[in-house]
């Protein structure tokens, strides 16, 4: 029962391909030929073909069973860039698996017959618009062995991914300073403390000694000289552009500030993020832009 429960959980699907339909049609035709000529050998021939068809179902099911995969954390991308998923796949049945692909016909590597050996698959899904690419089931399919059937099943869940808007340099940045200069930690000289490493941190700031001691990546924080004053990137400053264009423009400004190491705050309709210049702030800001509601006015007009 557990076997069938597993089949149900993995949501298996078996579909006849055009080639399979042709094959069955032909078997029927040959069967009729056997009837017409009262010829046992032609009957045998049609049954041989049907036997091979039946076995191809079994081999297809077998080819898609006994391996599992897990998706590693996925980085957000800007609209238009491909989302790159990394799947760790483990073979469990001690046999090779052939002709695997995703539902988008993206060819996956064959799995070797080394049991419990983890292999990595890279998947790319194109992102078209900003927003959230929801969590989805990743299905793997195969037409192994004879191409008569397309069998597919759920392999793993692909996590939710935020798709940032694409950046477009549509207008020069408006410099609205906050009043005091920003803390440019990177430029300072006095060590203020350590914090956990986050992707995007400067590798030169990693405290390798702390790493040796605690087996944990930490970066140094300095409390030092004041840098350029922090700027406010405001929704109002993009007035005159279209709704989505304003988002593209703000996205460009955010990335520009981050690359220059300038602290920036962001003021969007009904939400505001205080100035900072670290990677999490960048992520927060871009996510806020990504999740901006659609162009309500345009939508109303369209309706």
């Amino acid at each position, binding site marked *: 029962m557990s076997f069938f429960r597993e089949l149900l959980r993995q949501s298996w699907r078996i579909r006849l391909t055009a080639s399979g339909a*042709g094959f069955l049609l032909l078997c029927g035709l040959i069967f*009729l030929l056997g009837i017409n*000529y*009262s010829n046992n050998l032609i009957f045998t021939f049609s*049954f041989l073909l049907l036997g091979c068809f*039946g076995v191809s179902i079994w081999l297809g099911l077998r080819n898609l069973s006994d391996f599992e995969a897990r998706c590693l954390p996925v980085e957000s991308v800007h609209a238009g860039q491909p989302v790159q998923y990394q799947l760790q796949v483990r073979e469990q049945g*001690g046999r090779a698996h052939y002709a695997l692909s995703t539902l988008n016909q993206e060819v996956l590597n064959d799995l070797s017959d080394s049991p419990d050996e983890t292999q990595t698959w890279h998947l790319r899904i194109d992102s078209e618009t900003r927003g959230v690419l929801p969590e989805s089931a990743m299905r793997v399919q195969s037409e192994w062995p*004879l*191409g008569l059937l397309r069998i597919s099943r759920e392999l793993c869940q692909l996590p939710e991914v935020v798709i940032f808007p694409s950046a477009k340099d549509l207008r020069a940045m408006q410099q609205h300073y906050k009043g005091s200069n920003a803390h440019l930690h990177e430029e300072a000289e006095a060590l203020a403390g350590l914090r956990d490493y986050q992707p995007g941190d400067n590798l030169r700031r990693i405290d390798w000694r702390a790493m040796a001691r605690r087996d944990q990546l930490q970066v140094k924080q300095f409390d030092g000289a004041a840098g350029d004053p922090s700027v406010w990137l405001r929704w109002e400053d993009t007035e005159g552009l279209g709704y989505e264009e304003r988002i593209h423009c703000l996205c460009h400004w955010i990335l520009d500030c981050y690359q220059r190491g300038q602290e920036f705050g962001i003021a969007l309709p009904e939400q505001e993020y205080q100035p900072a210049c670290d990677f999490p702030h960048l992520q927060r800001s871009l996510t806020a832009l990504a999740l901006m509601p659609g162009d309500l006015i345009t939508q109303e007009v369209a309706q």
Partner: protein
Amino acid sequence: MIKAFRQPATDTLNSPLLAVGALLLFSLIPALGELHAGIALIALLPFVLRPLLLRRRVIRWLAIGSGLAGTAGLLWSSGTEWLSGETLLSGLAVILMMKWLEADSKREFLLLSYGALLLTALSSLYLSGLSAFVYLVLATLMLLNALLTIVHQKQSVLPRLMVVGKVFLLGLPLSAMLFVTAPRIQGPLWDLGIVMGLPIELVIDQEEREKGIKGSLRAGQVTRLKQSDAPVLVAEFKGVVPYKSRLYWRGAVFSHYDGVEWQLPEGWNNRSRLLSKAYKKRGEVESLLTSKKDLVSYEARVTPHGERWLYALDLPVGRSVESFISSEFQMLGIRKVSQEFNYEQKAYLEYTGGAPMSDDERSSYLELPANSNSRLINWGRQLTGDPIHQLRVHLAEGGYQVTATPDIAEYEDSLDEFFFDRKEGGIEHLASATAIALRAAGVPTRLVSGYRGGNLIALTNFIVVRQGNAHVWVEAWLDGTGWQRVEALDFVSPPKKENRPQPAAQAAPKPESKKQTPELAESPKEPVEQAVQVTKTPEQKRSQRRKTGPGWLQQLSAGLETWVLNYNPDRQVELMQKSGLRKVDWKTLMALTIAGLLLMIVIYSAFLKLKRRRQDPVDRAFNQLNQRLAKLDCECRFDECPQTWLLRLQEKNLPFYGALEHIIQQYLQLRYGAALAEGDTAVKDLQRDVKRLIAML
């Protein structure tokens, strides 16, 4: 496909072009000898042309056009019918080969492979026995290879061949199950259509309708009828179907013979005259019988033939609308049969009797042809005692044979020539000679024309009677007994193979032993049944030709004949009944097939699961534990090191952590450490501890 030619030599074996080309060529080989030489040449031409015309599209299309036009021209010039089997085979072969010449996509190659499959089935008809079987097996393997090559081009040769072998071998049990249990339907598809209610007249053309016995019967007439396979009637029996050899479908009854031709009396077609002598009262016919047995009921549909005969089963005793039974026990229509006619009837298969014979009738039934066949008449006059028995003995011992192609001219002494010189002739010669010899011996006789037997539609109660079943037999009058059938054919030698009429061979009345009522089944086999048991199906006939070769080959061939070639509906029913099935019809067999398929699914699924379990016992124990822990949301992710996993669980303060840690240490030792050498004991310890922990959880 152009690419395939440009690929390096090492990839050539992976080319769909080659695989499909080989399949096409293989599928054509048995039929090559049967095709017109020119067409065979055209069909083979693409194998030469393809490499040459590869890059010249225009020339390639020109070649294809010329090939097709050439084939059509050759077929036309040779006078082959456009709807004949040869045209179909030639057309299919040439079209497929020409398509191969320009094919270059996956879809085209698939199409060609399936076309080749059809060609294989048709070509296999030119082979027989073991060679045909081997041919079809090889064709299946080549098809699998072609499909794999088309669908998975990257795969190298050896692994691909291994997959081909695997698919074939694993498919064999399924194929065998289907072969044994799937309802075995045999016979032309038209027959099935007729059985399902298709009007019979749709099947036959006008010319065929005009054939048949009318007011006279000459030598060779029945033999010519036997060449046709046009259906005459379809009968559905209520209950069991009798032996086909016992089915006599009664038509015209002749009494006057002039030495060349049997003729019906003047005004034989006069309805008033026929009706005045007809048996109209219920039970009137039965009251005239001195003996009767084996009553059967059936419903029949007769094809329109423009005469009154309804070809009821001999001897009809029931009543049916729009028809009557004549004084000669024929069932006749009130009107001539100009459209399909349905009737229900009952009949005694064995009977003797008849109305008392008047002097006039007796003299007409004893009438001998003047100035003809004097030797036969003199021979008949010498018969004393029991002339019928003496005649039977003479026929049985005289080496007489009935042939499909009698070579006796129509003249006054043709029966003499048949009876004394040639001893080989048509069924008309035999029946006429019997009738005249008995008349000469003083036994009144008459000649009855009609049909004998029919084609049983497997697993049904339907019999299709065709012109090929045309027959004539003799009835002799014995005082005190009445009319009784004298079937001379049952006492002559079976026809030589080459002389056997094809439709008769198809309609070989093999007894439906298991479908008989006890009463019918007990009836002794007539000699003709014994004779026709030798007359097997076309496959059997072909297989009988090869009796040479090594012993093992003969044994293999014999096994194949028994279990594959001759596994006909009767054998299937017999096997099923031996296996314990009481009632065997198509529904039962279909149910059995479905049950077999389900059983196969279970077996294959179990095999799938068994294979999954055939993993390392250490891993299995670990996985069992992990599955149980997954329910507590504590499982070890497959990309997680067990040590890290333990550290993660340590923070959760689980009550079973200690036991778990112990097990994981054991596991690590067995997988990666020195415990590898400890063997079974350590594994058993681990399995025991896992079981205990799972029980605790």
